[in-house]
């Protein structure tokens, strides 16, 4: 990657080889998605076969890659572009400092085996691995942007459904299965059918105490957990434009929770400022050339989308989930709806709630701040601002898991760790942790977890554990009172 990365960006102009088609395309206004899709079509889709789509950056991790390397070995195929592949350890990796830095063996043997296997696979194929003690290690969707590898106009894939996060930079980024991980390792390409487009336009300003997480939960609540099926979402409008990159990543991250293939936001000055000077971002004359290309990526003024949804940010309140999918949410002061269908009642039974009940005031057991949705520096700041000078309520366990080692160090440089530790929270090493509960960071059956992560599926955070999705500040409020609490009540 490195050197060639910048070149790849300039290469995003459709080349002369495809001139006739290219001219025809110039006649019609294009969406950002169409521009990126077309620049990466190696073979266009036809009646007989899907498109062959080129992948600029392939991110891999320990949990969904081992069987892909096995597939390659069984066919005698080597990794075609290790320079376009980056490996990290996050999903099954411990977040306990002793197991990372203290010389204590990794407690979960199966996780240790997966980590060792990725170390072997990466070394054997010349892929760079950000290993256990690497200061650049972290959650795959946090480190890509942080290192400046995620750049506008790229196609990015990973064996993880939250790859949509990278779309915040104006990339086409989506999750793939392990067989497809093998395809990309072998050919740097994927077979894809062109998805449809959905524009989500957000106007107005979020009120105080309302976060990007609340907005995306409200969007999913509106369009439903299958509302984005077969589609790529482009988030647009003044609210999105005013968002920081961290906030944009939170929104794009959860596109998959609406069933969407990907989520995207057009790159602008906020994007460029974020990327400027990052280790893998282009520099010097390359930066100027890249910038000129990136500025042309936004959807054309008259671009058509297959469907469109509009929202007013001013209507959004702090949200919390009450059920077992991310579409089952209510404003934190609201009541669970009254419904009597089987799936709804099954979900409420699992959660230990009744139709029509209010959630505010209900006791919680665990608070988790972390995950590729909400583990960046601004998320930690939002939680720490509310916690400063306060304590985690008795009987509540609070875990704070930074998205990357770099986020951890940056937070420590600001003294955020002292706020968390002083309040009685656990300040851990980076990783997916209790978002997916593979590494042993789990909650016990029946426990209520207020979580800044992305999924409240049954058992997601531990067998029988009950997840309540919320923003970092809402999670911090629950930690302080030990109850589901509107964070605005605690804000000075």
């Amino acid at each position, binding site marked *: 990657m490195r050197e060639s990365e910048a070149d790849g960006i300039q290469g995003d102009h459709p*080349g002369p080889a495809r001139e006739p088609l290219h001219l025809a395309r110039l006649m019609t206004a294009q969406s950002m998605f169409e521009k990126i899709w077309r*620049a990466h079509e190696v073979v266009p889709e036809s009646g007989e*076969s899907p498109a062959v789509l080129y992948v600029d950056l392939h991110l891999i991790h320990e949990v969904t890659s081992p069987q892909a390397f*096995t597939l390659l070995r069984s066919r005698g195929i080597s990794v075609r572009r290790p320079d376009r592949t980056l490996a990290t350890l996050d999903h099954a990796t411990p977040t306990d400092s002793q197991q990372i830095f203290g010389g204590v063996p990794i407690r979960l043997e199966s996780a240790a085996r997966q980590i060792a296997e990725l170390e072997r696979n990466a070394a054997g194929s010349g892929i760079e691995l950000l290993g256990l003690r690497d200061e650049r290690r972290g959650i795959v969707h946090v480190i890509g942007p942080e290192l400046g590898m995620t750049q506008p106009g790229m196609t990015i894939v990973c064996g993880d459904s939250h790859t949509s996060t990278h779309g915040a930079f104006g990339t086409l980024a989506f999750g793939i*299965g*392990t067989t497809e991980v093998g395809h990309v390792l072998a050919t740097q390409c994927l077979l894809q059918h062109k998805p449809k487009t959905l524009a989500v336009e957000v106007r107005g300003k979020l009120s105080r105490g309302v976060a990007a997480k609340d907005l995306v939960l409200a969007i999913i609540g509106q369009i439903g*957990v299958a509302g984005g099926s077969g589609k790529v979402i482009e988030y647009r409008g003044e609210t999105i434009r005013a968002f920081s990159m961290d906030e944009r990543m939170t929104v794009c991250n959860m596109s998959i929770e609406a*069933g969407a293939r990907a989520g995207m936001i057009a790159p602008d000055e906020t994007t460029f400022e974020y990327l400027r000077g990052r280790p893998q971002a282009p520099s010097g004359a390359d930066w100027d050339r890249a910038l000129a290309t990136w500025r042309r990526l936004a959807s054309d003024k008259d671009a058509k989308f297959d469907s469109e949804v509009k929202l007013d940010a001013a209507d959004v309140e702090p949200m919390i989930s009450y059920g077992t999918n991310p579409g089952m949410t209510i404003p934190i002061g609201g009541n669970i709806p009254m419904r009597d269908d089987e799936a709804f009642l099954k979900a409420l039974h699992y959660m230990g709630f009744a139709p029509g009940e209010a959630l505010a005031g209900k006791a919680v057991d665990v608070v988790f701040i972390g995950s590729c949705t909400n583990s960046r520096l601004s998320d930690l700041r939002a939680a720490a601002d509310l916690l400063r000078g306060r304590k985690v309520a008795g009987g509540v366990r609070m875990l704070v898991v930074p998205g990357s080692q770099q986020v951890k160090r940056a937070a420590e440089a600001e003294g955020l760790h002292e706020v968390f530790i002083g309040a009685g929270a656990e300040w851990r090493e980076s990783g997916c942790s209790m978002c997916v509960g593979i590494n042993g960071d789990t909650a016990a059956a029946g426990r209520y977890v207020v979580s800044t992560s992305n999924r409240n599926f049954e058992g997601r955070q531990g*067998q029988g554990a009950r997840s309540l999705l919320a923003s970092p500040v809402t999670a911090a409020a629950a930690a302080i009172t030990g109850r589901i609490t509107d964070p605005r009540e605690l804000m000075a």
Partner: protein
Amino acid sequence: MQAIRRIRSRTIVLPAANVDTDQVFPARFLTTTSRQGLGLALFADWRFDASGGLRPEFVLNRPESAGCSILVAGRNFGGGSSREHAPWALLDYGIRAVISTSIADIFFNNAVKNGLLPVIVDEDTHQWLLTHPGAELEIDLEAMTVTLPDGRRAEFPMEAFARHCLLHGVDELGYLISCLPAIEAHERANAR
């Protein structure tokens, strides 16, 4: 990958909507480096109680489900995590087709790449299937039809390329590798 032409079986019906891949294959079993034997973890938290005993009321554990290879699921099956362990586990358990009105994108892609047939049917057919568990069906991939016990036929979509791969038991990697000259040309033209 096993070729599929026709699947004849009675159905297992799991009517819940929005069954996600965390239910199909709970995350704690993901620390495997193999794709063999994953059927043991299929729907683990619904099949087994906390001490590992079978929950007799769960549909997969009922005697009439033994030997069935068609799963009829509620709408929007397979959302959430991209884990391919979900179709691997279904296949290892003996399921060869999943029928619903909608199937999540990543699960759908993962299924066809492994010879698990995702079958999307209309609302009426789906309703009939949900209310007639154990019905003997014939799924014909070549004709893209599901035949109900009374002879009624419902059509289902399958794009040409995936259908070809499934009918012949070939995977997509061979085709992608045959595209390498075009891939190299694309890299040269775009300095990738």
